[in-house]
């Protein structure tokens, strides 16, 4: 056990040491040293995670490994340990985060080589990883919350990394504040659970769930707790109505977008729900909300993705949309599928973000896809890897995205918590995804080159393309652990066996799942062929017949404008919430503080002064007057006594 404690300590502290190392020498311009140290730190964490996770395998497999370092807080009934645990759920996350994290750190060495402050960048990146590990490995809600806010802080710092640009600083602030709205909900969720179960520890909460006590209404404590927690998830994982920060977060350096805003941090909300899956299964109404919000977000974000011109913005909306799929999975009780998609998405989306980074790097910081095209020629490796990412995200077998997305869609259709309408939305979204991703491929890599003459795109150095290649491999094979039952002849796949103990099945009381191989094959066929058709359509639009999209946009001018401007959600928030709040605050200050309270006190002051001067006039120093006061006083007293 002792050795596990040491492993956990190294696992957590390696990125922290990297953070300190680079933080202290933050002025240094030596990107290579900073980057190598930071990458190595994360790699150490990855190795430690592997060693710890390996104990969950084999003949002597244990259900979980954990350790406790010290007692963090102890007040009344609240005892919080600084304890960490790796079980079958956190194992997947920790490997993805440290593994993909290592690759992205490595990529950054090349990407940030010309930056003014590479050490500071790597310090932040390592600190982010430290917080992410706290979030994933913490054995209780409070430690998760520590990591949860910590990653938000790092995200804030990294989005605003080039802070001399006002817009980028504003994007960082927007991210932090929007996340804080979610965090407030998260806090309320923690409170509700604490007073319900008397603990904030995950395993204790799950152990204390009432057997068969499913809450059917809306106001039960577990439902309320789950809804509060989901508010937290909508903040961190960019779901409706709090998704607005994520597209702006693309202001940060591109590897940051890959690591934080695609592969790891934004999936924290999904992870939290999966972590607490037995609790959420007690609150089916909360799950319905999760599913509907997830499906709606998936669809809306995908439609916005159709019209954007900024390569990173397209990927950002795609991330929001894919996160929606993950919540849809959780909402229909397919937590395993949700986490599966977290993993495959981490592979292919990190791949595509890094690929876009490679493109942006090659294009000298140009992000507008209208100025690209035909880049396949100049960036063969980037194109090849991006191509695999594209196959994965649009769900072409046998690439990773196919398996996780198919699993989610089938569960949406078949689960007792699912619904046909949700399935339809899911399939439509898959089609739109296929369309806009193909559009991205066409505009960036295929077709005629629109690259300005003065730009000479060049392929990335090995330190940048090796991570791309590794991620491309993972995006290919990563899905094979979750091959659908129907393809395996009815046998459970590896993933299902892995999650067997930690992910609860949907309770019988909520209904029965549909079991029909024919239906499953049919559903798969529908969504796959729809995706392929949409991809071909996009190819015709943007390569074969490039004038067509413009004419369509002209024809459906209103709709296009609405979608292109992201449904004016930001504008709505500003006009209806933020600006009125600022005006109201100015009003409060001017009218309540300055005009009302202060005026009132001045009036009171005047009254006191008035009374004082009246009283003063009695004290004339005239003896006869005093004698009269005494006489009057005596008379009154006598009257009162003798009455």
């Amino acid at each position, binding site marked *: 056990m002792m050795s596990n404690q040491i492993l956990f300590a190294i696992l957590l502290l390696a990125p922290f040491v990297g953070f300190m190392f680079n933080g202290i020498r933050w002025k240094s311009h030596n990107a290579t040293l900073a980057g190598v140290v930071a990458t190595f730190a994360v790699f150490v964490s990855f190795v430690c995670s592997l060693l710890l996770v390996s104990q969950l395998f084999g003949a002597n497999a244990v259900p979980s490994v954990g350790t406790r370092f010290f007692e963090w807080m102890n*007040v009344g009934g*609240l005892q919080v340990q600084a304890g960490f645990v790796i079980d079958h759920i956190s194992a997947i996350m920790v490997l993805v985060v440290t593994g993909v994290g290592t690759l992205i750190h490595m990529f950054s060495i090349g990407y940030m080589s010309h930056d003014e402050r590479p050490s500071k960048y790597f310090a932040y990146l390592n600190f982010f990883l430290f917080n992410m590990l706290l979030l994933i490995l913490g054995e209780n809600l409070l430690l998760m919350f520590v990591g949860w806010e*910590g990653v938000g802080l790092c995200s804030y710092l990294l989005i605003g990394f080039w802070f001399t640009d006002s817009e980028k600083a504003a994007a960082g602030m927007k991210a932090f504040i929007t996340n804080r*709205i979610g*965090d407030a909900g998260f806090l309320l969720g923690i*409170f509700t659970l604490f*007073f319900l179960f008397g603990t904030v520890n995950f395993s204790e909460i799950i152990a204390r769930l009432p057997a068969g006590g499913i809450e059917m209404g809306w106001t039960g404590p577990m439902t309320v707790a789950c809804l509060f927690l989901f508010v937290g998830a909508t903040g961190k994982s960019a779901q409706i109505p709090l998704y607005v920060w994520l597209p702006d977060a693309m202001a940060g350096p591109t590897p940051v977008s890959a690591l934080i805003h695609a592969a790891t941090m934004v999936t924290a909300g999904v992870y939290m729900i999966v972590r607490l899956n037995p609790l959420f299964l007690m609150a089916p109404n909360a799950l319905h909300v999760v599913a509907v919000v997830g499906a709606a977000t998936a669809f809306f974000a995908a439609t916005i993705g159709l019209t954007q011109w900024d390569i990173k913005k397209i990927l950002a909306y795609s991330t929001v949309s894919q996160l929606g799929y993950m919540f849809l999975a959780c909402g229909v009780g397919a937590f395993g599928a949700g986490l599966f998609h977290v993993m495959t998405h981490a592979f292919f989306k990190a791949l595509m973000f890094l690929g876009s980074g490679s493109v942006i790097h090659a294009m000298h910081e140009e992000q507008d896809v209208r100025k690209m095209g035909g880049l396949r020629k100049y960036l063969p490796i980037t194109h090849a890897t991006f191509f695999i990412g594209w196959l994965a995200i649009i769900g072409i077998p046998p690439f990773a995205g196919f398996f996780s997305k198919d699993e989610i869609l089938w569960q949406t259709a078949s689960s007792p918590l699912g619904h046909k309408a949700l399935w339809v939305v899911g399939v439509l979204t898959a089609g739109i995804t296929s369309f806009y991703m193909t559009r991205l491929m066409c505009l960036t890599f295929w077709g005629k080159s629109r690259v300005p003459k003065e730009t000479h795109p060049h392929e990335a150095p090995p330190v940048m393309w090796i991570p791309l290649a590794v991620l491309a491999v993972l995006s290919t094979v990563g899905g094979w652990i979750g091959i659908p039952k129907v393809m395996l002849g009815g046998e459970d796949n590896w993933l299902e066996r892995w999650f067997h103990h930690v992910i609860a099945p949907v309770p019988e009381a909520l209904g029965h799942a549909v079991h029909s191989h024919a239906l499953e094959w049919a559903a798969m066929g529908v969504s796959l062929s729809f995706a392929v058709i949409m991809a071909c359509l996009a190819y015709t639009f943007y390569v074969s017949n490039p004038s067509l999209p413009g004419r369509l946009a002209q024809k459906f001018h209103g709709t296009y404008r609405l979608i292109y401007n992201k449904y004016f959600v930001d504008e709505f928030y500003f006009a209806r919430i933020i600006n009125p709040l600022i005006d109201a605050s100015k009003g409060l200050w001017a009218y309540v503080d300055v005009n009302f309270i202060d005026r009132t006190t001045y009036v009171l002051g005047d009254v006191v002064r008035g009374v004082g001067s009246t009283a003063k006039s009695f004290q004339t120093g005239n003896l006869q007057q005093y004698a009269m006061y005494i006489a009057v006083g005596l008379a009154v007293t006598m009257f009162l006594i003798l009455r």
Partner: protein
Amino acid sequence: MLLSVITLLPLAFALVMLVLPEKVIRPVALLLAVVEFAVSLLLLTSFDKASPAIQLVEQIPWVPEMGISYFLGIDGLSLWLVILTTFLTPIVVLGSWTAIDNRIKGFHAALFVLQTSMIGSFLAMDAVLFYVFFELSLVPMYFMVGIWGGQRRIYATVKFFIYTMAGSLMMLLAIIYLMFACRDTFGQMSASLLDFYRLKIPFVAGEFLNPQTLLFFAFSLAFAIKVPMFPVHTWLPDAHVEAPTPGSVILAGVMLKMGSYGFLRFVLPMFAEASQYYAWLFLFLGVVGIIYGALVAMVQPDIKKLIAYSSVSHMGYVMIGLFSLNMYGVSGSLYQMLNHGISTGALFLLIGMIYERTHNREIAKYGGLAKALPIYTIIFIIVTMSSIAVPMTNGFIGEFMILLGTFEASRPFAIAAVTGVVLGAVYMLWMVKRVFFGPAGELVRDEHHPLHDLNARELTVMAPLVVLIFWMGLNPNFFLDYSKASLDHFVKNRDNYRLAVSPAQPKLENVAVRGEAQ
């Protein structure tokens, strides 16, 4: 002896200041303040943290006829507040090294008198003695703002003085009433808090004109003004803006806590029924304070005023924690008092440092400071994180416990209070964005006066604060353990609150005194 030494040593220091030549005042003052801090740390070794009793008691009859005595004692409620005071004083001395450049003799003398009065307020176990210290603190603060303050300092001092005095007078009347009530109940007058706790003061729910309700409101008004609670907070922004940096640090860091401490020591245990009955009112005003303070802070054009209003918001948290009347809330409030002393003190120091460089505090004239002053920025952002209660800083522990306690006491109020978590981030980060990020602003661009980053002295001033921010955030148990027994006793027995004296003393000389008097 220890408590008297801690209380009165600064008074002696003040006299030393008056006889020393100007040249050596600063180093000597710093040395003496550090000595005082070191002496106060002895409390941690002599204090028995397992006992809820008041400890290290000293009692000397003062006006025996009226049961007034020089009565000092310490328990888990006051321990950290005393140490906070002694901790902040050397920081303030070092922090005002260059900011205060005239009449430094008088300034340091005033500072030490202020220190005595603040420590005395926290240690006094006799109501009259408490009142004396409580009022005494006004005098040096009055001079500090009035002499070393900004342009509208006279307006601000008068407002500050009158507000506080108005409240204190009510409290004085209430104290006198309680002393007579002691005579009626126990046959002898007493101003000892221990006797006040034993009084049974009649309470009629729902009616205003009964002794407990009136006394409750009399004390509450005095302390609420000091805290300050919405709507009696308007003296604070003016006082802060006009006060010199050290004055602001002491004012926000310690003096406001005299108000919240007053609730903890007097109002909640003495008027248990009234405070239970009217808890909703204070929860309500506290929540209004949190939100109102945050909103008004958000639109302030002056950095210092912004921080001043953030104090209103933060102290709103302290109040709802206290009136949640459970272990989580009250512990959180006590913790938040310390946090606020550290983080707001640090913010005022930082603002003072930049003000010394630019002589301007208007947010709109800044911008891009992060590039010009990177070290300053790092420290400012760390303190900001503490102020907005990001985990791993002290602020989180306090805010979390307060909200947890409030949630147990009243969910609607907790849900309303949680909005403060968001608004706090809004006003602080918006300010940080405008001051530190973006292109260089008017004051930062100024070619003739290039700004210099923090020097060694300024770093020395900030370092202990930054260390505490993380220490209190990462290992709260160290601090909570000293207060746990007292807080537990407080929460469980508030309806019938008694404080034992440790080591046990023969009960009051008053018995003998009374024999003589008759």
